[in-house]
């Protein structure tokens, strides 16, 4: 039981990082109907920014500054590469985001260099006792920070004018435009928020183990998370991320014992298996909006 609970906490920790990344995907999707494949590069850029800034400013300030910096980078990307494509097929814009991802990663790789970089986090592999459970502090930090950020994000959408504008634009762009909502501002804000969340997620990915040029791959796990949760549901993104993290962690710990016939590393594909199962049962995800189409 103790081992099971520790496995669950590890899964929730990793899952909350996937949730942050998934939120970025969903915020951009809701605003622009485009899946941004630039999220992995923004995540890596955030982690690298923290690792450089932490040497100068200390860790916590570095996280804040890196979040703002990457939000700025995301805003610039949106203004330069995405905004001119408004009105074009979303497929074309998605392909552009793939290109942006590669460009940003090549630049960021130069800042990573040859060695593994550390983000200077205070947690490392330190553990803490929660009653009988012994868990890594960084899992708890991931969970707590994600909970706070998700709370703030939901409050932002619920109670602020800009949040309302974003919700209105997501619901119907033309009507929102007619009501005086600046859809361009909504696009920019969505990219900025996604950039900030990606930077925080990147920092967490780097805790303990450091970052290298191949670390960006982790961000792809947010894709099954958003499909599981529903592409246009913020709550779904959080739930999807946590589900993916927990299932992956459970398979890492127990599949070898209970289902060895699945092969040694089945945990790697579990996010995609969960995604397929959900797609079969609920094609719009657990919390996604069911689209009604007239035939």
């Amino acid at each position, binding site marked *: 039981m103790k081992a099971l609970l520790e496995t669950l906490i590890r899964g929730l920790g990793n899952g909350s990082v996937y949730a942050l990344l998934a939120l970025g995907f969903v915020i951009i999707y809701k605003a622009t109907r485009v899946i941004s494949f630039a999220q992995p590069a923004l995540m890596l850029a955030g982690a690298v920014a923290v690792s450089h800034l932490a040497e100068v400013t200390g860790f916590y300030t570095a996280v804040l500054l890196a979040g703002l910096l990457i939000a700025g980078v995301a805003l610039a990307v949106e203004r330069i590469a995405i905004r001119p494509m408004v009105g074009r097929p979303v497929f074309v814009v998605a392909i552009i985001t793939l290109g942006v991802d590669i460009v940003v990663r090549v630049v960021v790789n130069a800042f990573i260099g040859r*060695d593994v970089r*550390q983000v200077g986090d205070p947690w490392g*592999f330190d553990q803490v006792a929660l009653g009988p459970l012994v868990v890594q502090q960084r899992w708890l930090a991931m969970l707590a920070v994600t909970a706070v950020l998700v709370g703030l994000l939901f409050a932002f959408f619920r109670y602020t004018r800009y949040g309302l504008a974003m919700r209105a634009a997501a619901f119907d762009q033309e009507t929102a435009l007619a009501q005086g909502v600046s859809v361009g501002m909504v696009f920019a804000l969505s990219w900025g928020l996604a950039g900030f969340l990606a930077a925080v997620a990147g920092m967490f990915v780097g805790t303990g183990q450091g970052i290298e040029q191949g670390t960006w791959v982790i961000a792809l796990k947010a894709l099954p998370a958003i499909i599981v949760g529903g592409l246009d549901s913020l709550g779904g993104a959080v739930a999807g991320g946590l589900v993916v993290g927990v299932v992956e962690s459970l398979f890492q710990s127990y599949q070898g014992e209970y289902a060895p016939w699945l092969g040694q590393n089945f*945990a790697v594909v579990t996010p995609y298996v969960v995604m397929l199962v959900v797609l079969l049962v609920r094609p719009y995800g657990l919390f996604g909006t069911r689209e009604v189409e007239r035939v």
Partner: protein
Amino acid sequence: MKSRYVVASAALVALLSACGVIRGDDEGGKGAQAAGVTSEPCPTAVDKKKGCIYLGTVSDLTAGPFAALAVPITDAQKAFWARVNKAGGIGGRYEVDVTKFVRDNKYNPEVHRQVYNEMKDQVLGLAQTLGSPTTAAILGDLKANSVVAAPASWTSAWEFEDVILETGANYCVEAMNSVDYAMEAYKPKSVMAVHLAGDYGADAAAGAKIAAERNGLTFTGVETPSGATEQGRAITEITKNKPDLVILTTGPADAATIVGQAAAAGFKGRFIGTGPTWNPALLKSPAAPALKALYEQSAPGRPWDSDTPGHRAMREALPGVTPNDGYTSGWAWAYPMKAALEKMVASGDISRKGLLAAVKSLRTVDYEGMLPPEAGNFAGDPDAATFRQTLVNKVDDKALTGVTTVKDFFVGPTAKGHTFDGPCYAKL
């Protein structure tokens, strides 16, 4: 009727051309210069009176997972050949160029094959072909055209390929020696090999398995994916089964995660990681105390700051670089190619076949002390020629690449008694 003749003759020409009867690039023809060898000087020649031998480099230079190692390897080899050229070149007649044909494989076998095809008619051989799966993609062509290539990988498969000019013991031997070393130093009763898939990880795991069987130890193999965040299962397996010895064959960030988290969970066994599991930057990671306490690195060659003429020459040729054993490996890999080129030029048969013949006659290579001369045995059968000496290093803050040697070149009883009759990874 006429058109039938035209079609028939076109078909005949096409057939003969495909069979190689009609060819425009008759390399062996009378008076023709061998591919990759010119009587004109190299673009950056030291002595304009000498001809030029072009060697290609296909490496992971930008976006692939081994770029951190590949760039120093490539830089070291450029410096190595520049030194050879300054010292009079090959046989006093040729200089060697490794700068004109340098291409990025992005660690993708398809790209590797494509860039190799683009350069293959213009180079005599390859100064570097990085990676095992990537090199496997061009191996057929290398063999068919007798193109000699120095690899940048240590899989045991290279022992069985005449055209591959490997340097240093393979991963399989390295793991055998690591287990034998641990038998003396730590007297383990159980061994676990935590390894990546393929001919890097599986090669070492196979060596560990063979050594475990010979020493009467229980053996468990745990294949793990690459990526520091993917190591949860490997860590669980280690902390659950508590082996006395873990042989690691992963990347450096993976290794640090495994050692650091296993130690944090109370694991007290020993880790020995193959050469590529170490990176000096790990000394700054949260895993550093665990690495210092529990981890050693096995290696096919001595580290950067060793005191041999070869190491000294390398350090002099690479002033101002951040020390990295990628440089050391790249430099050492070039010695057999130099020896083979010298032998080829001395024989007078300056061609790919001449170079291959020279390689097959090499029994020793002067590594200027970086490796024993017998590491350069490419003659005779693979089992007899397989070099079986490796070292063990420990983590040391003060060393320039973070490690110092605790056991110099040695052969354990397992590697000594083992018959190499095929790649080890095929037997895991």
